[in-house]
């Protein structure tokens, strides 16, 4: 191997390692990201597009030697910002009544169980509509498995604020759902 081939090979190796890392992250985080975006109010197609864009941005970020600290939070933040840019109304779809769509919830359940299940989700949907945007965002990211610190980074708020917001949101839901 000649001396001048080393500087050429190094970026290629780095690029290959970056692609492999992105692939691993994609298989791990695609579904949580999709779920977050769909619950945020995007359609399934819009969410797919946003996830693709977010991972392309991640690829560019890693290729340009960007920071690799808290990649999960970084991805959620990018996806969150893109979702906000696409939405004309934040409350457009989240919390829509799910009547007629929950028939597949429990195919093996008895009709009684299905009615109870529907009722439970109807109460929860009504309670979710009463949450503030921040509370809803915190709870969605929490449900996606993010730590309070990561949630704070995604939403641009302090970790202590996230803790308070999550507590407030959960208590509201518990109260409205009579738990």
């Amino acid at each position, binding site marked *: 191997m000649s001396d001048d081939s080393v500087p050429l090979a190094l970026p290629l190796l780095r690029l290959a390692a970056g692609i492999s890392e992105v692939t691993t992250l994609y298989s791990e985080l695609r579904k949580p990201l*999709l*779920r977050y975006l*769909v*619950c945020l109010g995007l*359609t*399934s*197609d819009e969410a797919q597009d946003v996830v693709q864009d977010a991972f392309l941005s991640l690829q560019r970020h890693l290729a340009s030697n960007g920071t690799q600290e808290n990649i999960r939070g970084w991805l959620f933040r990018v996806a969150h910002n893109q979702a906000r840019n696409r939405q004309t109304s934040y409350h457009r779809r*989240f919390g829509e009544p*799910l009547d007629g*769509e*929950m028939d*597949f*919830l429990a195919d093996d359940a008895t009709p009684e169980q299905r009615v109870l299940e529907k009722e*439970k*989700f109807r109460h*929860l*949907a009504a309670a*979710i509509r009463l949450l503030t945007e921040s509370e809803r965002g915190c*709870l*969605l990211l*929490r*449900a996606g498995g993010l*730590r*309070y610190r990561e949630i704070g980074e995604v939403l641009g708020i302090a970790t202590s604020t996230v*803790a308070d917001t*999550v*507590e407030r949101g*959960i*208590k509201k*839901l*518990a109260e409205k*759902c009579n*738990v």
Partner: protein
Amino acid sequence: MCDVQEKLIAWLDHELPTDESAEVQRHIEGCKQCRTRLVGYEKVSETFDVYCDVVMAAKTRRRVPRWVPVLAGAVAAVAVMFLTFPRTRIEPPPILPTTTAASVPVPAQPTPETAPRKTIHRRHAVAPVHVRAAKWQPRETAVQIAIPAEAIFPPGAMPKGMNFIAELSIAPDGSVKQVRLWQ
């Protein structure tokens, strides 16, 4: 009201520092009211999680248009009919030997005798089509062409009036298999 009540959800999420977490743990073990609250918060968290899955499944499910299953059923029905009823047997026309105006009469080639057909009891309707296609071979033909010597050699090189006969064997795929040239 308990002092640790405000830390219950953070404790549930493992977000408290170690010392505070231990303190809350001790309190929960001795406080029935906080244990009940904790169970409620856990239940709400789980229901919220399931609700998110339901929303995602519902929106993903709606992506498939209603006409897709109908079209898929129609395509399947056509495919079944196509496979069930075999196509009409089409025998390829025999390839007859062709001759040019300049050709000399060719002795008739003995045509291979076709064996009398047997009645085959078919168990599967589709398989015999492939068997027939694999066994069928068109007859090999030969073409003889008379070529004047002047057309091959320069004038004067060969005596006048001399002809050559070229015999071409045609392969089943239409290509020339063999060329024999004699005087």
